[in-house]
C-alpha cells in the first residue's frame, strides 16, 4: 500500500534565517560544548560552531532547530505560543513573591555551651540570662510574623543553643498555635540545636508538637570535634547519640543535619558523607564556609579558596552519586535546590540562592533583644558592629516599618540578578541568586563586582559542574530529576 500524506515533512522544515532568537544566553562548558539557556533556565547543549550558526541565522540542522524551538530559544516570526509559554513559566517562577516571608527565625538565646571555631555569633557563657529572649519580645515577634501574607509559616528556633532557653521554645510553640487558630496558616517548627542538651522532656514535646530537629554534623569524630569545641570534647558523641534518639522517638524524617566546611574538611569529602550515611541520614548539604562572624575575624579554617572548595564539592557529589548507585539514597541539598531551578519552573526560594534576594521577604530574624534582621548573616554582621541589615526592633517597629524600610528595599532592589552588571548576560542567571549581604560584607556594596566575587565564582563552578554531569551521565540526569521532588 502507498502512504497517505497530505503535508510533507519538508513543509515544516526551517530554512536558514527563517527564525528569530528569543532571550538567550550561553556559557562555555568545555572546549567543544556550550550550554544555551532561555529566560527561565531551560537549557540546550550545543557545540561552539552550532552556537555561531544559530546566532548568525545560518543553521540548517533541523534536529537542533527543533530542540531550540521546544526549549523556547528560537521562534518563527508570527508565532505567539513560545512567548506566551515563557511568560507563563516566568510567572510561575515568581509566584512565591507575593506570599512574602515564610521563614521566621527566633534567636531565643545567644548563650551556648559550645565554642565552635567558625561560630558566627558571640559566644556567651551559659549562665548569663541577659542574652535570653523574653516572652514579651517573643510575643511581639510572633505578631509581626503573623502579619506575613504567606500561607506557610516556618518558625525556626536559633541560638546560641536554643535548648538553653527551652521554656521559651515551648511558650512560642504553644502561643503560635493558639494565634494560628484565627489564621489557618500551614505552621511548621524547627529547632536548630547541637543536641548536647537533648532530654526526654524535650523529645516528648517535639513529638507532641510535630517539631523538626536540625543539627550540626561536620563529619567524622576528629573533624567534628576539632571544629566544634566543647568542654569534654564530646560534641560528636553527643550529636550522634542525639540524632539516633530523635530518629527513634520522632522518626527518621524528622531530623536533618548540616555540615560546615572548614579547611580541614576539604580533603575528606568521602569520610564526611560516609558519616552521614552511617547514621541513616539521607541528605547532606555540602556548604561553603560563610564569611561572617568569627569565621571571618578569626580566619580559623576560613582561608581556603573557591577552587579548593569546588574540588571538595565535586568529590563529595561523586561520592553521593556512587552511594545512590549502590542503592543507598542520599541527596546533596545544594544540587537539589539547583535541580529544581534547572529542570522545573519552581523557585524553591532558598534564601541564599534566589533573586530577588530572600532577605526580609524570604526570611526574617528576631534577635534575642528584639532587633529584627533581614537575614541570619545580617545578624552576624551586626555582632561584628555592622548594623546595615537591622530593620528595626519588635518593640517599636510596625510591620510596615520593617518591610518598607530602606534598609530592606535598597539591598533588595540593588541586587536583583536580572539587572545586575554581568548577571544580566550570564547563562546561569535563572539558576543563581542575589546575595546583597555577602557582597556588602566582602565588597562594601549590595550589587558586588561579579568578576571578583567569590559568590559568583563558587556558583558558576557548581552550575558548570552540574550541567556537565547532566550532559554526560544519564544516571546523574535521572538523579537530578529525582531530586526535584
Amino acid at each position: 500500500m502507498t502512504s497517505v500524506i497530505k503535508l510533507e515533512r519538508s513543509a515544516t522544515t526551517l530554512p536558514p534565517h527563517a527564525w528569530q532568537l528569543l532571550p538567550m544566553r550561553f556559557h562555555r562548558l568545555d572546549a567543544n560544548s556550550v550550554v544555551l539557556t532561555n529566560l527561565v533556565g531551560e537549557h540546550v547543549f550545543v557545540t561552539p560552531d552550532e552556537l555561531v550558526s544559530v546566532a548568525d541565522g545560518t543553521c540548517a540542522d533541523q534536529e537542533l532547530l527543533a530542540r531550540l524551538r521546544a526549549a523556547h530559544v528560537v521562534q518563527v516570526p508570527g508565532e505567539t505560543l513560545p512567548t506566551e509559554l515563557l511568560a507563563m513559566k516566568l510567572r510561575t517562577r515568581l509566584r512565591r513573591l507575593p506570599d512574602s516571608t515564610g521563614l521566621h527565625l527566633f534567636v531565643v538565646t545567644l548563650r551556648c555551651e559550645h565554642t565552635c571555631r567558625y561560630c558566627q555569633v558571640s559566644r556567651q557563657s551559659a549562665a548569663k540570662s541577659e542574652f535570653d529572649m523574653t516572652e514579651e519580645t517573643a510575643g511581639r515577634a510572633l505578631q509581626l510574623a503573623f502579619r506575613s501574607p504567606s500561607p506557610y509559616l516556618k518558625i525556626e528556633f536559633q541560638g546560641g543553643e536554643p535548648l538553653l532557653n527551652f521554656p521559651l521554645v515551648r511558650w512560642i510553640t504553644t502561643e503560635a498555635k493558639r494565634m494560628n487558630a484565627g489564621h489557618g496558616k500551614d505552621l511548621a517548627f524547627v529547632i536548630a540545636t547541637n543536641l548536647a542538651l537533648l532530654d526526654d522532656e524535650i523529645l516528648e514535646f517535639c513529638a507532641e508538637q510535630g517539631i523538626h530537629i536540625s543539627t550540626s554534623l561536620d563529619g567524622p569524630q576528629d573533624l567534628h570535634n576539632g571544629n566544634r569545641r566543647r568542654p569534654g570534647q564530646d560534641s560528636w558523641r553527643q550529636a550522634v547519640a542525639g540524632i539516633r534518639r530523635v530518629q527513634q522517638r520522632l522518626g527518621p524524617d524528622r531530623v536533618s543535619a548540616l555540615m560546615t566546611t572548614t579547611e580541614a574538611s576539604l580533603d575528606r569529602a568521602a569520610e564526611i558523607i560516609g558519616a552521614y550515611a552511617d547514621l541513616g541520614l539521607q541528605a547532606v548539604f555540602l556548604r561553603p564556609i560563610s564569611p561572617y562572624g568569627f569565621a571571618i575575624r578569626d580566619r580559623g579554617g576560613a582561608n581556603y579558596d573557591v577552587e579548593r572548595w569546588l574540588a571538595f564539592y565535586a568529590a563529595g557529589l561523586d561520592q553521593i552519586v556512587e552511594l545512590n548507585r549502590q542503592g543507598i539514597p542520599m541527596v546533596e541539598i545544594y544540587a537539589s535546590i539547583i535541580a529544581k531551578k534547572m529542570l522545573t519552573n519552581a523557585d524553591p526560594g532558598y534564601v541564599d540562592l534566589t533573586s530577588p534576594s530572600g532577605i526580609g521577604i524570604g526570611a526574617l530574624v528576631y534577635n534575642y533583644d528584639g532587633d529584627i534582621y533581614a537575614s541570619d548573616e545580617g545578624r552576624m554582621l551586626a555582632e561584628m558592629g555592622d548594623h546595615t541589615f537591622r530593620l528595626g526592633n519588635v518593640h517599636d517597629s510596625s510591620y510596615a516599618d520593617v518591610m518598607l524600610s530602606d534598609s530592606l528595599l535598597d539591598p533588595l532592589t540593588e541586587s536583583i540578578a536580572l539587572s545586575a552588571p554581568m548577571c544580566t548576560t550570564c547563562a546561569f542567571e535563572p539558576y543563581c541568586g542575589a546575595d546583597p549581604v555577602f557582597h556588602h560584607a566582602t565588597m562594601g556594596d549590595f550589587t558586588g563586582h561579579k568578576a571578583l566575587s567569590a559568590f559568583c565564582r563558587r556558583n558558576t563552578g557548581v552550575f558548570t559542574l552540574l550541567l556537565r554531569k547532566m550532559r554526560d551521565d544519564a544516571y546523574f540526569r535521572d538523579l537530578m530529576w529525582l531530586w526535584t521532588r
Partner: protein
Amino acid sequence: MVMLRLTGRAHASGPAWPLADDVWRVSLAEDGGSEPGSAGEGSAKHLARLVPPGRPAPPGYGLYLTTEARTGPLAELRTAARVKAGTPGPTLAIGPELAHLSAGDIIHVSTDARRVTVLWKNSARHNALLLTEQCDNYCLMCSQPPKERDDSWLFDRARKVISLLPEGARSLSLTGGEPTLNAEALIGLLEHCKHVAPELSIHLLSNGRRFADQSFARRYAAVGLADIMVGIPVYAPELGLHDFIVQAAGAFEETIHGVLNLASLGQAVEIRIVVQRHTVPALAGLATFIARNLPFVAQVALMGLEMTGLARPNSALVWADPADYQRELAEAVGILVTAGIPARIYNHQLCVLDQRLWPYAVRSISDWKNDYLDICRSCSVRDACGGVFTTSGMRLSQHLHPLP
C-alpha cells in the same frame, strides 16, 4: 477472554413495523428497575425485552428480542422469528453472535431491521460513543480515518444512548473524528449528560484545537460537568514534528492554546501520545516539554499503535516495534513521574514492556478489540496483560513471547 462482536444480523417479524425508534435498551424480567411504566425517557417504548427461548413474552414493551442458542444461516433466523410471531409487539430475531446481549445493554437497530449494533455493553469496562467521523487533523497513524460526509445523526444517536443509560452506568468515552467540530451539537450533548446522568465520568477525545477559541472553551467549561476530562494528543514538543504527524499546518499552536485555555478554566486535561516511528526519538523532549510547560495536566497516556485505518497504508512511516523503543519510553515515563505527572502506558503487551514500566501499564484495549495469541496461552502474566488489538491484523511486535 472471548472477543465480543458488536454488530450482528437480525430479522424482523410481528406487528407495528417500522419501529418507533432506532435506539433501545435491553431488558430482562429480572431487570426490575426498567420494567415498562418506569418514568422518564427510558420507559416502555424504548425498552427491548429479551425473550429467552421457550419463555413467555409479557406485554408492554416496544420491542421483543428473540435468540436461538444454536448457530445457523439467516433462514433459521426467519424460522425463529416465525416461531415467536406470537410476541405482543414488534419482534427481532438476533443472530448467535449477539447472544451476549444482556440487561442494560443499549442497541441500535438499522432502518431495514437487518442489522443490530451494540452501542453500550453494560458489563464492559470501557464504552465509547462515536460522535462524528469528521476531523480537521489527518494523523499519519489514525485508526479511524476521517470522512467528510454529514454524520450529525451520530450526535442524535448518542443523545438517545445517554438518555437510556442504565442506573449505575459509571463511565463513558466520547470519541470521533473530532467531536468539537460541531460545537452546538457537542455542547448540547454535554448539557444533556449533565441533565440525565450528572454522576457519569466522561472522557472526551479531542485534538484540542477548537479549545483555542476562548469562547468555545468557556462554553465547554460552563456546562459544569462534575467529572469530565479531555484527552488531547500532543505528539512533539514543537510544531514542526507535531504538525507533520497530524498532517495539519497550525495544529500545534491551536492544540497547545486549547490545553492552556482548558487549564485556565480549571478543566481536566489528559495528554495522549501515540508512540510511533516519529514520536520515539522525541519522547524525552516531549516529556520535558510537558513537565515544563503543561505541568498541570491530569495525566499523560502513552499509547501503543493500533495498526488499522491510516496506520496501514502509512505503515512504513509510522510502525515502530515496542521492543525497540523501551529505552526512550522509560526515559519519558521517568521524566513525567519525577515531575509529579501521572504517566500511564496503554496498548503495550507486558512481554515487550520494560519490567520497570509495568506499574504504569494499564490493561486498556477495549474488550471488543482485545485478543491473545496462541503463544500467550502459557504466559504467566496473561491476565494482567492487555493482549493485542484484533484490529491490528498481523502487524504486531516481532518480540511477543510468553513469560515464565
